Each structure stands twice: as structure tokens, then as C-alpha cells.
């Protein structure tokens, strides 16, 4: 009997309706789920609800929220994983609070200095690049980046089936020695580390290319890269659509072409990536976009379930201990 994925019913801009809808759909697809929310949660149907009377708001201080709202959905979800009632947790709510809940209740995998948020970056025509840290740690130490490389490689292997993921250190030039002190120190450590296929420095423009599988950086830079790409792609798609609609003659041809673009659009649409994952905590924790619809939730639940089945956390534990 498989353990369910614990779904934070109250996290996200469209909670609880879209979240509950996503959970019900996942259940229909055969993935066991359990909701975490108020006892009188509407629309849950036959799904079990782990009661949680408090919600940590999107704009609340994460650490303070987790420590003072001990009956919040996020804390209860993380406790469910810790206590073996659930195999994973997913939330589209306050990202910092999701991390803090996971950290303070599930705990770190032994030996991990800091967990990192790993986010898939679409590579049209290729396999997604895993970018980490995408925002958990604003400032990092060089040793942590080596751990990010190890954890990111495990994730890339299990999520995208890449046997030997190529790891690049995000910097401002390809040549070794480029970048700030942190990058220079990290380069040396990564080059000498076991269990990592380190290909050297990569630049921002390589993140969406097929030349690297795992891109390692600090949380500040990673978050800037992520938001820049998201915004850039959105802007481009909008501009493309506007161009197609700008003249009647274009519209006619556009109708014929659009079907060719839909698969591409799905590739870059965050709704389909299955969310980001917090690597380095002792359990699977999926962090979904705040604007997640039920579709994004279903996809996130699928990823959570898959990573549990593939024993991703145990593999991370092994990789860290052998480093």
C-alpha cells in the first residue's frame, strides 16, 4: 500500500479550489493523495483531510510563520512525511515557509550543509536543465555548491534519465578563473570532486541549451536567472502572438502554424514542469508556483510520486555520504 502525497490545500493564489481539484485528478490517475487543510474543507470528496487550522500567508515571514503557527497546513504536511503518514509533500504557498517547514520537521539529510531549490529549465528539443539553487540560500559557501552539484545530479538522473549529468558552474565566462572568489573556490572544489561530471564554467546563455544538464549557482543568482527566463519567454510569446495578429493576412497563416507552436509552448509553460523540488531534506518536497492551477498541481504530484518511487532521497543520502 503506497503512502499518499500530502497536498497543502490552502497554499497558492487559487487555493483551495484549484489545489483540491488537482488532488482529485491525481487520485483519479491512481496516485494516492491526502489533503492538508481545515476539517471542513469543501470539495474534498472521498479524499482524506489531515486537519490543520492555520495557514501561513504568502507575505508572512517564513521562519516566524512556521515557528508560531504549529497547526499550519505546511507544518502538518511536513510532519506527515516525517511521521510516515505521507511519502511526500507539495505546496503552492509561501515558498520560504514550505522550505522552513520541511527543514524543521523533516530535517536535513545527514551531511547536507544546506538544502537547495532545484528548478527545471526547459530546453526546446532537448532535456530540461536542472538549475540550483534557485532561491533557498541567498549567500552560499563554496562547499555547499559541491553538494548542490551532487544533489542536482541525482535529481537529473532520476527525473530526466540522464546517466551522467554534465554539471556546469554558472559564471561570467567560460575560462577557469572567471568570476568572483566564490566561483573560483567552487571551481577548484568541483574539479576535484568525485561523483560529479564537471564540465567547467557555463554562462547564462547556456542554461537553456543542450550543452549542460545541471547548472550550479547561489540562490540569489539562480532566482534572478529563473525569473529572467520566465519573464523573457512570456514576453517573447506575447510578442509572437501580437505579430501574428497584426495583419489579417498573417492571421490566416498563423492559424495553420499555431499547432506547431503548442508543443513548444507547453515545454516552456511553468504549468507543465511539475514544480521545483527542495533537495537536501529528508523527504520529497515539491514547491509549486504560487499561481498554480489544478494542472500544475497534478504535474507536481506526479513528480513527487515518481521521486519517491525512485528513492531519490536515499540516493542523495548516499551521494552526500560518499563525497
Amino acid at each position, binding site marked *: 500500500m503506497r503512502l499518499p502525497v500530502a497536498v497543502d490545500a490552502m497554499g497558492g493564489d487559487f487555493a483551495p479550489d484549484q489545489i483540491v481539484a488537482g488532488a482529485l485528478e491525481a487520485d483519479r490517475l491512481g496516485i494516492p493523495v491526502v489533503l492538508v487543510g481545515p476539517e471542513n474543507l469543501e470539495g474534498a470528496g472521498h479524499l482524506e483531510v489531515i486537519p490543520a487550522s492555520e495557514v501561513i500567508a504568502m507575505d508572512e515571514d517564513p521562519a*516566524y510563520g512556521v515557528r508560531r503557527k504549529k497547526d499550519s497546513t505546511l507544518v502538518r504536511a511536513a510532519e506527515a512525511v516525517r511521521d510516515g503518514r505521507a511519502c511526500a509533500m507539495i505546496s503552492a504557498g509561501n515558498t520560504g515557509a514550505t522550505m522552513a517547514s520541511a*527543514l524543521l520537521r523533516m530535517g536535513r539529510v545527514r551531511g547536507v550543509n544546506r538544502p537547495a531549490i532545484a528548478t527545471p529549465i526547459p530546453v526546446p528539443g532537448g532535456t530540461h536543465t536542472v538549475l540550483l539553487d534557485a532561491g533557498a540560500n541567498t549567500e552560499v559557501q563554496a562547499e555547499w555548491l559541491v553538494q548542490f552539484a551532487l544533489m542536482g545530479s541525482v535529481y537529473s538522473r532520476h527525473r530526466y534519465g540522464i546517466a551522467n549529468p554534465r554539471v556546469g558552474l554558472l559564471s561570467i565566462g567560460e575560462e577557469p578563473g572567471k568570476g568572483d572568489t566564490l566561483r573560483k573556490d567552487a571551481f577548484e572544489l568541483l574539479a576535484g570532486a568525485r561523483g560529479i561530471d564537471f564540465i567547467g564554467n557555463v554562462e547564462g546563455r547556456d542554461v537553456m541549451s543542450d550543452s549542460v544538464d545541471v547548472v550550479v549557482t547561489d540562490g540569489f543568482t539562480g532566482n534572478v536567472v529563473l525569473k529572467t527566463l520566465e519573464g523573457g519567454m512570456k514576453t517573447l510569446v506575447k510578442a509572437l502572438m501580437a505579430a501574428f495578429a497584426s495583419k489579417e493576412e498573417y492571421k490566416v497563416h498563423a492559424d495553420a502554424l499555431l499547432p506547431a507552436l503548442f508543443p513548444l509552448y507547453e515545454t516552456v509553460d511553468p504549468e507543465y514542469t511539475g514544480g521545483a523540488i527542495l533537495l537536501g531534506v529528508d523527504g520529497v518536497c515539491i514547491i509549486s508556483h504560487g499561481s498554480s492551477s489544478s494542472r500544475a498541481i497534478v504535474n507536481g504530484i506526479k513528480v513527487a510520486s515518481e521521486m519517491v518511487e525512485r528513492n531519490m532521497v536515499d540516493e542523495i543520502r548516499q551521494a552526500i555520504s560518499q563525497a
Partner: protein
Amino acid sequence: MPAETHVVDGPLDRQAIFHIVRDQLVDILEIDPSSISEGQSFKDDLNADSLALVELVDALEEELSERTVGFRIEDEDLADLKTVRDAVDFVYAHVMAHGSGR
């Protein structure tokens, strides 16, 4: 694992409190219990950073909430906890003021 509660039987005296703090530090910092003594500085001697301290106070709150009423360590208090002794004193002062459950 933070989930473990280190049940210390008997009264919550200063020695018992030290053991609770020490055992949490062993879990969080992944170090040997014999390497922890009261005089040690979290930052300089034990290499415990701000995250480890948050983990420590959260674990202490969870564990001690069962033994003594209303035990909280506010974030402002964290700045005053520089050594293991500071943490033990802080908890002990609360226990003396509010009593312990056993």
C-alpha cells in the same frame, strides 16, 4: 532527526536541561556528544551557524513544550544565545519561573 524527543525522566534540573540541549546539538550538528561542553561558543567552537540555532530553538520548543508550560524562544532572544551555557541558562530560567510538568 528532529522528530526524536529525548525523554529525560525525573525533574527538569539544570543537568537534565544540559543533556537535552546537548542531545539536540548532536543531532543538528552531527557531532559527538563528548565534544560539547557548556563553555563552548556556538559559532566559534561548534561551527553552528544561524540556521543551526533556529533548528536548535525549534527543537527545544517542541521538546520542552511537553515538560514546561509556554516555553518559547523568540528570535530576538537568539542573538543572546552565544554559548551552550547561554542556552541552558535560558531554558533553566524559564523552568524556574514556570515550573516543570514532572
